[in-house]
């Protein structure tokens, strides 16, 4: 019994990362950032607006939050659709009540299917980023490059037409990528994307079609990760967000501005028994020394102070 000798060869064992996508850099070695008006903490509330097709193919895997029952899985289809009909309107009220500026990550297919919701979002003037075509149109390793090229083009361009916005941000469905996704995003005018979770601040991500910014959208603080994956209670969710807010504010005192990113799903926190937890979090965070802004504005404030 033995493994192939390549299993004990380490071709990337040298300084820095084991790939050339971004440079190795510790957060503490970077310049200190100050948010507009001297604020210490930027609040990025990111709302995925999603369409989960009933006829889910699940290639190459079934996405979390997607269909799990034999076709037709009316239960999960309609539970997710609930977010776009009901939950989102609870969100919008809460944002307005506490003065929060949200960013919406929208599936292009949803924007096509649901003009009322699209109008509601675009009339508010909030930033919309592209969240891919829909929740069963995954980007994944080994995917046919031509198909993915078309998928990115269609998703971004159609959303630009529908929203009449520039669309510079991207969040992959399931936060999954192929080895070509970053190049395809850069080639389609995307400036920042939110799939990688290795930092608490923006950083440069290299592609051979121009560099992107990786924006730090925490998955550990994601409402579905906490309540659907980890099965924590609504009360615990609120505690975790408040503890995170306190910690980042404290760290910002000596390390420069930080970002609290809340990725929240209307089908999750928009439920009647959960919306109170979101309101509690927003009330608490907005009472602190906080800069509430869109992902683009946060990135703009960041890049205006750094060249890294």
């Amino acid at each position, binding site marked *: 019994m033995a*493994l192939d000798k390549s299993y004990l060869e380490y071709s*990337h064992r040298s300084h820095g990362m084991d790939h050339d996508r971004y440079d190795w850099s510790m*957060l503490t070695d970077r310049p200190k950032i100050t948010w507009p008006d001297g604020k210490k903490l930027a609040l990025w509330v990111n709302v995925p607006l999603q369409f989960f097709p009933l006829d889910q193919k699940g290639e*190459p895997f079934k996405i979390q939050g997607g269909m799990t029952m034999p076709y037709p899985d009316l239960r999960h289809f309609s539970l997710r659709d609930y977010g776009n009909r009901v939950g989102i309107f609870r969100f919008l009220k809460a944002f307005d009540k506490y003065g929060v500026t949200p960013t919406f990550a929208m599936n292009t297919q949803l924007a096509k299917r649901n003009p009322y919701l699209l109008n509601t979002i675009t009339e508010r003037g909030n930033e919309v980023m592209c969240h891919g075509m829909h929740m069963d149109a995954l980007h994944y390793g080994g995917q046919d490059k031509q198909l993915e090229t078309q998928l990115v083009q269609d998703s971004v361009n159609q959303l630009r037409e529908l929203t009449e916005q520039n669309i510079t941000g991207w969040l992959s469905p399931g936060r999954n990528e192929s080895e070509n996704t970053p190049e395809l995003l850069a080639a389609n005018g995307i400036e920042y994307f939110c799939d990688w979770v290795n930092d608490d601040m923006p950083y440069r991500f290299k592609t051979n079609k121009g560099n992107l910014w990786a924006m730090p959208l925490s998955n550990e603080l994601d409402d579905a990760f906490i309540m659907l994956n980890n099965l924590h209670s609504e009360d615990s969710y609120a505690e975790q967000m408040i503890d*995170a807010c306190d910690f980042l504010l404290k760290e910002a005192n000596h390390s420069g501005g930080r970002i609290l990113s809340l990725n929240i799903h209307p089908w999750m926190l928009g439920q009647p028994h959960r919306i109170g937890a979101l309101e509690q979090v927003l009330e608490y965070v907005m009472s602190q020394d906080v800069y509430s802004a869109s992902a683009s504005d946060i990135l703009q404030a960041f890049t205006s102070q750094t060249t890294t």
Partner: protein
Amino acid sequence: MKSDPGFYDYWPYENRPKIRWPGGKKMAFWVAPNIEFYELNPPANPSRKAWPQPYPATQGYSIRDYGNRVGHQRQMDLLDKYGIRGSISLSTALCDHHPEIIQMCKERNWEFFSHGIYNTRYTYGMSEQQERDMIKDSMETIYQHTGQKCAGYLAPALSHSELTLDLFAEVGTELFGNEGGIYTCDLFHDDQPTPIHTRSNKPFVSIPYSLEMNDTIAFVVNKIEPRRYGNMLKKNFDRLYAEADESGTIMCIPTHNYQVSCPHRMKAFEEALDYITSHDDVWVATGKEIADHYLEHYYEQAKTDIAQKNAALGPAATHKGAK
């Protein structure tokens, strides 16, 4: 395959010889940060997949990278604040990838022990020679970069062979004589150190490294809330502290910079460290310091006690230790 690995004999948790730690302290406390490097595109192992998705596994890879980019410094600052020196379970390739982290830990006189080369290279399927080479490489790397003679082992990603502990003990002797390869964190059978049989029969000990208190097990496998984790740590401490009146105990918190150092988890972790270190009768130590003290003062006594108790029970009680 064996029905029992044969590393240790049964030894009930009562009426054992009494342990006291340096300074007469009744309890030893150590924190073991795992500082790991996971590869984005590792070679395939026949028994275990490194990532659930086809390359690139953006999510799994990047949250682990978060530990090195963001989390390490946070946890280190916290351990500094409470006067705790970490005992690092190290993916030793990190000496090459991120020597800046190694340097910071070196400056603080933290301990480095081997956690393999990469946490995406599993022991499964290796020949004896391959596993020996991998272990030797990892121990030599620690020595070259830190000057430390690696004393402890935690197999990469807890992937073992039947020979893992034997090989680690032997390579330790080969490289560093009695100072190398003296303790393992791979076994979870006890709350006190226990002598371990290896085929070289060298003095070798298992040091409790609690899987239950391990943040990744707590947060990822058991999916517990951050504040509950903080409470568990305190309860774990309270009980071991009370029991230490009878004989010295050990508490270990194994951590990961990509878990406990996330913003929503730091507060509860800090509260637990503050609580634990506010007690007087605690020796805050490293894994090697605990192993050294035990081997010098209690190892022989323990072996004798185990042998006597098992001899009194007749032949059925001793078969497991025979190798």
